[in-house]
């Protein structure tokens, strides 16, 4: 097969991979935890709404919370048991927040809900397929958590040239997609067929970094067996962070840039993560909603770093114990990768749909940052920025809180990949400043919206008052008018009377002085 031409994106960094530590053991299902904690908000968009109550018995795969809005996703019970609480619980979130969760005490029986009758997806309408994906609660498993069915809804006029499966997995430490591609390549290829059918994509590419030769071999074998192998291409791309970023991967594969205000769809592409794709296969062909995923448990804090198939809602602590949590207190607990992951504040927080990796990081894995020095304007950050931004200028304006100028130089094109912070010789936490600036701008906008709304309300109140005043005035005016008319009527009567009286008097007077009046007439002649 001819080698596909690949492109480069600007910047990026080469990172120590630290992946092989977690790929030595095959993937097993994690032990069933006693309790499953399911946050209602595990995806981008609106929180799901619980449809169970405390005390309800639920079956594995049963719907326990439904989607509330277009951008939202339902949640299913990962195992059978009893709902014991619907309350706030620590979740994996950068703020360390507690958020509403459904807590299920498992009964260990793993009784499945009745399966949806099987139907061949080839006979299904794309819209029906989309609905099934939606009902299965599938969101992007690569980390973003965007409800997947929306990407399957490109609109009638859009032609999908290429469907890209993202198996790049460019962050250090994480190997869950790698292991999935090695161990379940058929699931991925099956899912790919479904997606291709739903999108009527002309071509498909499965892309992975060239540091995963085993996955490449496994996928190649699976693709070769599939009947549509002629439109599926597996492409190995150079290993550089963040090659797995959606926009970066598209650039590498096609040379095209997704417009800053657009979607891949606008240039004829749809991109899905490989794990999401396998989940879609399970939803459509097996009728299973999204209730488990592969998770990498790694870092110096565990003695057997590995991948496990984990039920959504499993507390991190249980996984650490199964992987031989060491006594030494890991310096940090990170969910996701070291570049874009989040610090988890407590190991009681659960695995959610988007959790691809848990790193129990020791100081050796990820040394704590060195003291911050002033920016020496070396430009290393700009050289590393895949979004082609000038992080050093962004930093400058973020510090100066010049929120207008920082937007002019495109703060919102920053994908928070962390490359700039990584290379900065002065160890400036640049990304933290950018997040801060973004939050600040959002809160200002909300503030402004609120103010606008308040002003509108105020204005309409004033208007109402004005209107009422005007109306009152008008009514008063009318009344006055009416009164006047009436009084005007009165005066005409009076005048008539007066006139009559006058006439009568005149008549009388004429009769009395007939001559003089005649004289008068004469004299007047």
């Amino acid at each position, binding site marked *: 097969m001819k080698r596909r031409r690949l492109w480069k994106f600007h910047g990026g960094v080469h990172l120590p991979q630290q992946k092989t530590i977690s790929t030595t053991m095959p993937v097993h299902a994690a032990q069933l935890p006693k309790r499953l904690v399911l946050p209602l908000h595990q995806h981008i968009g609106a929180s799901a709404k619980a449809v169970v109550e405390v005390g309800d018995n639920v079956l594995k795969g049963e719907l326990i919370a439904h989607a509330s809005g277009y951008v939202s996703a339902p949640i299913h019970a990962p195992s059978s048991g009893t709902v014991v609480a619907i309350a706030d619980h620590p979740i994996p979130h950068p703020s360390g927040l507690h958020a509403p969760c459904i807590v299920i005490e498992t009964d260990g029986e793993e009784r499945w809900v009745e399966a949806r009758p099987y139907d061949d997806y080839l006979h299904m309408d794309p819209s029906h397929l989309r609905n099934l994906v939606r009902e299965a609660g599938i969101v992007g498993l690569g980390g973003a958590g965007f409800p997947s069915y929306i990407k399957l809804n490109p609109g009638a006029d859009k032609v999908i040239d290429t469907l890209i499966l993202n198996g790049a997995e460019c962050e250090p430490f994480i190997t869950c997609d790698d292991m999935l591609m090695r161990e379940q390549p058929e699931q991925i290829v099956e899912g790919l067929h479904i997606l291709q059918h739903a999108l009527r994509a002309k071509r498909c590419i499965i892309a992975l970094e060239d540091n995963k030769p085993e996955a490449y071999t496994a996928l190649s074998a699976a693709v070769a067996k599939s009947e549509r192998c002629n439109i599926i291409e597996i492409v190995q791309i150079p290993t550089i962070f963040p090659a797995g970023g959606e926009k970066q991967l598209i650039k590498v594969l096609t040379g095209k840039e*997704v417009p*800053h205000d657009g979607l891949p769809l606008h240039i004829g592409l749809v991109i899905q993560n490989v794990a999401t794709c396998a989940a879609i296969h399970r939803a459509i062909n097996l009728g299973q909603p999204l209730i488990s995923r592969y998770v990498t448990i790694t870092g110096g804090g565990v003695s057997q770093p590995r991948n496990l198939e984990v039920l959504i809602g499993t507390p991190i602590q249980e996984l650490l114990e199964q992987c031989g949590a060491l006594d030494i207190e890991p310096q940090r607990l990170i969910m996701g990768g070291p570049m874009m992951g989040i610090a988890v504040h407590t190991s009681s927080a659960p695995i959610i749909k988007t959790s691809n990796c848990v790193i129990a990081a020791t100081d050796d894995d990820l040394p704590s940052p060195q003291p911050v*020095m002033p920016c020496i304007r070396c*430009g290393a950050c700009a050289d590393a920025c895949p979004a082609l931004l000038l992080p050093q200028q962004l930093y400058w304006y973020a510090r100066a809180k010049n929120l207008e100028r920082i937007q002019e130089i495109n703060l919102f*094109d920053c994908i928070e990949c962390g490359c700039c*912070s990584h290379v900065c010789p002065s160890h400036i936490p640049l990304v933290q400043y950018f997040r801060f600036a973004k939050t600040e701008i959002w809160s200002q906008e909300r503030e402004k919206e609120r103010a606008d709304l308040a002003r509108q309300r105020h204005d309409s109140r004033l208007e109402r008052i004005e209107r009422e005043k005007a109306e009152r005035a008008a009514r008063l005016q009318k009344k006055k008018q009416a009164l006047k008319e009436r009084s005007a009527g009165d005066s005409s009567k009076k005048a008539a009377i007066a006139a009559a009286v006058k006439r009568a008097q005149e008549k009388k007077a004429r009769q009395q002085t007939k001559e003089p009046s005649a004289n008068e007439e004469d004299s007047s002649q």
Partner: protein
Amino acid sequence: MTIAPSSSPFAHGTSSVTKVMLRVIYALLPAIAACVWFFGWGVIVNILIAVTTALLCEALILKLRQRPIMPYLLDGSALLTAVLLAVALPPLSPWWLTVLGVGFAIIIAKHLYGGLGYNPFNPAMVGYVVLLISFPREMSSWLSPQILSDYSLNFAATITATLNGQLPNELQLDALTMATPLDTLKSQLRLDHSISETVSSHPIFGLLGGKGWEWINGALLLGGLWLIYKRVITWHIPAAVIGTVAAIAALFYLYDAETYASPLIHTFSGATIMGAFFIATDPVTASATLRGRLLYGAGIGLLTYIIRTWGGYPDGFAFAVLLMNMVAPTIDHYYQPRVFGHKRK
């Protein structure tokens, strides 16, 4: 503003300000060695005096400014300023010249503007220009490699010479010194000697430029290329500086080879290479965008040529750098790169 203590990225590179600065100093080592070879120990003595002065001044000011002393003292920036200035000064300069220049560079040019990262002007060049204006005679008495080879001065004698101006064997400093190649060209031109006449007759000129100078410049070039290879600097500024100087020189040289020096002389005799790779690339005071750096470098090249050819100083590099330092923020303001996914404006 409070920054959450731990948020991504959690992985950090191993780069540091100290490493960056030290690498630049390493890159200077071959040139320093060549300098010792051709001009004797003077440059080493210069460096010793300059470094001591720089570190003392830095520590003093940090203390006055109530800044943490150790991290900044170890960041290598004062060290680098000192070494750069020491290399640029004539060997056997009197000690007070070096002390004054470095003191001015660190205290006024660096710290008065806010210290590391905040100084708009390259401190070493500010120090250099101040000395050039105030002490033109001391600044233009370079040793001649020829004469020096007749009276080799050992290290101890060099120190004595630097500290109290005493040379062994009743030698006079004047006997050892001589104008720089560019200086010579300029003065000979004033005397209506053509360039080719001067270059061929004067013992100071060698193969490419000034004798000895060409080797030092070769060593600087080597160090500079290593810096690019190590990604301490990018190619943009050096290429733009040297390219511009050489291109303009070539134009005039073709026009009239007798009044305008060849591009080779311009490249290999003065501060062109040292400046292009080591001075103009000082990140703090240069333009930070890639396209901006091209413009910035071209500006330095152009100004250097203009000052050399028509200005009052034989080498205009320091002035050119300082002038372009002023423009750098403006260049950065207007030369924004195209952001990913945006159309080119």
